[in-house]
């Protein structure tokens, strides 16, 4: 018997096929069950995760509503108020109660930790502060101790808000400002010696020295966008636990009228809603223009005017500045750009480095503007 013959006589038994077939089927079945279990497990895990996330979110929301804690924690529930002063700050409820004359119910309130939700709700101010997710911007005369602060972010210079009443349209009739937490937008930067402007050098916008900055309360403060303000002409600055409002005051370079309007209209994403003319003496609105065509015409007149240094020089030498006409350009987001119109020139409320940005106004243009004001 040769080897080939021997090999050929070796072969699997006929019954092996059925055994193999059943084994293969059994294994496929087992694997499919495993796959199905794995899929179910994945779906269960995903469902658990969703449930967990939802629960955590709900718990967090409830905590926001009910938790009373130390200053650190309560900062998130704080309220920002503006009233009689310049600075805008966020303080917790207790701080507000103890520092504000308006709140006359401190009885029984000894510390923030002792406040219950119920008490806090009762003791909270009635003008919206204390509501869930609300921040009351509270003004304080403390902010004026060292004068308003100016900060510089690239070419744009902002000044700490310093009028008795909130200037923009955000505030209520009392000049108080209550914003939602969600109105505080994304972080822009942190302030340092380069961005803090020396109090004594507002005109030339010189930065603070390191020693000055170390004493400045805004050193290392964080700048956030103000979500209500589409054109970023107003910003929120957080220094320590306090929040302040800054608005655009200067542009650190020479710009045309068109560029200034472009900043406020955020390149047309924040269009002009209306233009108001005011009587300067009484600060009373004499006419409000909402017609798009008229608005465009007025804007075209403004942007056609060129800056003329001789006007600035003349004014610097003592030319009387009797503003003939006050014009307020109201943007879609509520921010305003004030334009002071004279017989032969106009200027914006936004300054420019080392000068005030006077734009020469021809007689024809002046008369056109006057016709819109009447």
């Amino acid at each position: 018997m040769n080897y080939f013959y021997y090999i050929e006589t070796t072969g699997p038994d006929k019954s092996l096929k059925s055994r193999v077939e059943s084994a293969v089927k059994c294994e496929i079945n087992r694997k499919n069950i495993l796959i199905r279990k794995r899929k179910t497990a994945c779906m269960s895990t995903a469902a658990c995760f969703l449930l967990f996330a939802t629960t955590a979110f709900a718990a967090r929301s409830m905590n926001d509503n009910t938790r009373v804690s130390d200053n650190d924690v309560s900062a998130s529930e704080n309220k920002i108020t503006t009233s009689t002063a310049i600075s805008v700050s966020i303080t917790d409820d207790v701080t507000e109660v103890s520092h504000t004359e308006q709140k006359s119910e401190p009885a029984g309130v000894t510390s923030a930790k002792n406040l219950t939700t119920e008490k806090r709700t009762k003791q909270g101010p009635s003008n919206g502060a204390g509501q869930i997710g609300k921040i009351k911007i509270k003004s304080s005369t403390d902010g004026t101790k060292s004068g308003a602060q100016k900060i510089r972010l690239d070419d744009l210079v902002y000044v700490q808000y310093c009028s008795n009443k909130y200037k923009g349209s955000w505030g209520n009739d009392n000049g108080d400002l209550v914003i939602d937490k969600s109105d505080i937008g994304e972080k822009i930067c942190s302030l340092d010696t380069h961005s803090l402007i020396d109090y004594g050098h507002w005109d030339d916008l010189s930065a603070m020295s390191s020693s000055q900055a170390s004493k400045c309360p805004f050193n290392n403060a964080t700048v956030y966008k103000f979500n209500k303000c589409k054109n970023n002409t107003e910003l929120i600055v957080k220094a320590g636990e306090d929040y302040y409002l800054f608005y655009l005051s200067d542009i650190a370079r020479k710009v045309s009228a068109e560029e200034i309007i472009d900043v406020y209209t955020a390149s047309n994403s924040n269009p002009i809603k209306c233009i108001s003319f005011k009587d300067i003496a009484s600060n009373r609105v004499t006419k409000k223009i909402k017609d798009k065509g008229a608005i465009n015409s007025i804007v075209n007149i403004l942007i056609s005017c060129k800056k003329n240094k001789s006007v600035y020089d003349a004014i610097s030498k003592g030319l009387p500045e009797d503003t003939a006409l006050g014009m307020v350009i109201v943007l879609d987001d509520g921010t305003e750009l004030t334009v002071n119109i004279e017989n032969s020139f106009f200027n914006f409320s936004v300054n420019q480095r080392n000068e005030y940005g006077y734009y020469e106004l021809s007689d024809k243009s002046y008369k056109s503007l006057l016709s819109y004001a009447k």
Partner: protein
Amino acid sequence: MAKICFIQSDFDDKYEKYSTLIYRTAYQYLLNVQTAEDVTQEVFVRLLTSTKKFNDDEHEKAWLLRVTINLCKNHLKMRANGNIVLNDDINLCGYAFENLSDLRIDMSKVIKSLSAEQRAVVYLHYYEGFSIKEISKITKSKENTVKSHLRRARHNLKTIIEGE
């Protein structure tokens, strides 16, 4: 991961094509009918539940032989470790030689004189027609090792046959 389906025609084709090859290879390695059948079954289970894609039939064939040899080696290891109690009396006649004459005894003696590796290499080289290079790839050993197995197998076979 997609669900695995059993396709009868696919199974039939593959069984027809590879069952003998796998069984014979396993049998040459193990010299045990039951174990060779177990290995064959295991190889088919792996083939039909695997998601592996083969370039062509040769690729598939080489993969099957590789798996077969690995499984056989595992069986031998288990046997060496005493995990499997086998009947020492390896019955070559169990299924294949039942109708053969006395000559089968001679061949069984001859086959038993070879080691497992030698038997597998002899089978793959002389019967299945694989080259030494191909066998070295399948068994994952050096070509010289395969050559050595073949040379020693031939020597053993010659010695036994001449002695008889």
